[in-house]
């Protein structure tokens, strides 16, 4: 896809442990256009957080990119030096993390934490970023920005903390916002507010958003396209309507069946039997095969190649669902 804001191609990420490398993410490719909202869903441990952390290279110790490329506005990031990455972090790509309490420094005032990014990128202006800080804090819907700027994180509510974290990420007007489970640690009512805020801000500021979540419902409200990840691979990608109406991959179907909706009698929940494979002992073929109701012998030996959907996206499965499932 040419003209993409972010282009990830053949990304592989591995954990080095006692000389051996355990693959966490394999052959992940996707592209995000300017202003687009892209979702990545999957169970915990499927590599979705690792994948977006790799985009701005905030991987944990011993976790390394082993293959592939990450291009943002034409800059190659996968093997770039820290010096190359620094001007892009914060200014080009912002990131919001899962737990807003641990994501904020407990001993620095909220206002200073927002202004710090501005000053780092030379956008502080004459007042050290104070004015812009208040502007961003208003933008994310924090009441009385002047008072909150002088507060410490422990003096704020969970929702206010996450709004602050979003303000930090947006301070320098990035073109891409990465959001790693931004609502998982929040109360249900606050979750909806934060999601709406992210959607609104994306449209108003014209930035792209990558939203990582385990919750397909969240993706449905927020995203244009979605990638479904399982055991370190993207198994299906499609526009949001298609994922809900005509999912192709049995894992996507299983995920949809495990969303609670309507009355319990009309739509009983179907948890997915079994567990995702241990990354160190992944089966040679399709990693979902051991849990898949449609598996055949070929599934257990060779990972299926990518089949394109007609309307964009595609899937990796030998036995896709026929259209009209559900």
């Amino acid at each position, binding site marked *: 896809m040419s003209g993409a804001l972010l282009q990830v191609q053949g990304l592989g990420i591995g954990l080095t442990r006692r000389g051996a490398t355990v693959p966490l993410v394999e052959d992940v490719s996707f592209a995000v256009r300017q202003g687009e909202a892209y979702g990545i869903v999957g169970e915990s441990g499927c590599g979705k957080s690792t994948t977006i952390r790799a985009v*701005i290279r*905030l991987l944990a110790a011993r976790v390394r990119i082993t293959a592939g490329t990450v291009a943002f506005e034409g800059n190659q990031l996968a093997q770039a030096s*820290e010096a190359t*990455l*620094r*001007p*892009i*972090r*914060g*200014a080009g790509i*912002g*990131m919001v*993390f*899962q*737990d807003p309490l*641990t*994501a*904020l*420094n*407990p*001993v*620095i005032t909220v206002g200073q*934490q927002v202004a*710090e*990014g501005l000053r*780092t*990128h030379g956008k502080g202006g004459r007042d050290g970023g104070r004015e812009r800080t208040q502007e961003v804090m208003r933008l994310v819907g924090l009441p009385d920005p002047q008072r909150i700027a002088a507060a*410490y994180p*422990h*003096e704020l509510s969970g929702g206010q903390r996450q709004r602050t*974290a979003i303000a*930090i*990420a947006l*301070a*320098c007007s990035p073109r891409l916002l990465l959001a790693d489970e931004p609502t998982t640690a929040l109360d249900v009512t606050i979750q909806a507010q934060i999601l709406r805020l992210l959607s609104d801000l994306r449209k108003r500021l014209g930035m792209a958003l990558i939203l990582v979540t385990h919750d397909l419902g969240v993706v449905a409200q927020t995203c244009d396209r979605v990638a479904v990840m399982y055991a370190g691979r993207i198994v299906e990608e499609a526009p949001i309507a298609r994922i809900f109406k005509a999912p192709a991959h049995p894992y996507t179907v299983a995920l949809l069946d495990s969303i609670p909706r309507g009355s319990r009698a009309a739509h009983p929940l179907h948890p997915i039997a079994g567990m995702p494979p241990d990354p160190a002992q992944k089966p040679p073929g399709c990693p979902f095969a051991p849990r898949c109701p449609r598996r055949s012998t070929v599934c257990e030996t060779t990972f299926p190649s990518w089949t394109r959907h007609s309307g964009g996206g595609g899937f990796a499965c030998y036995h896709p669902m026929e259209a009209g499932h559900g």
Partner: protein
Amino acid sequence: MLSYILRRLLLMIPVALGITLAVFLLVRLIPGDPARAILGIHATPDLLAAVRARLGLNDSIVVQYLIYLRNLVQGDFGQSYYYGEPIARLVGERAVPTLLLLAYSTVLTLVLAVPAGILAATRRDRAADHVVRIVSTVGVGLPPYWTGFILILLLSVTFKIFPIGGYGNTWGQRMFNLFLPALTISLNVAPLVMRALRSSMTEALGAGFIDTARAKGLSGWAVLLRHALRVAILPAIGVLGLNIGFLVGSTVIVENVFSVPGLGQLMISSINTRDYPTIQMVTLIFGVIVVLIYLATDLLQMLLDPRVRKAQIG
């Protein structure tokens, strides 16, 4: 804030009272007779009895303690049995070198412990970390009187860089002369602070706010110093404060090794001469210094950590 400090200072009174009682009793457990120590071995029994009576040593222990307390409250710290001088003056002269030595050791401790702790945490389980940890384990195990003599042998006798001991007349001389004694003390305390910092720094570096700081585009140093250290230093300050009690104890030994005319040296000589009022006063001052250091530690933590501030004063 002010009312908190006031409350803490009031709480010091029972602590100080406890110290006076403990020291008063302990001093009288030391075998030997102050009158004998003053007059020497050739004193006649009559003379000894006269001196004992003058010093009030014939009263019951309870009466002696109450007289001592009464004088203390009135600001009368008594006369030294041995020097015959007012103890207030004696102690006042000696306090300055000791306080200087304490402050100097604290600064050296931080100079040694903070970079080593940061290095060990950022190079965790690599060569630099192992070196720092081995050196610090050895350091904490070395007794200060031994380290002191080794430093004298090496840097004063063999290389003649530092004086063997003494204090000096100008501040410059004092800073120079007190370097080895301060180093001796901090070699003992720095490892403890370093280890505390290493573990709190490791924890801080793994915290979510470090990711946030890096995602803002901050440089490695800014992340390390402005974010990680600022949080990690808090428990290390606690450990430093607690160990200053230990540090105060070390000054007694180190002052004697390096002939520093401080409270520690006065204490040892007063014990040798059974100079009861001087021992009592010096010990009381050491006790008050320790309690004040704990207070200063708490205030520093409140200053640096808004969460502690909130918990203490709301």
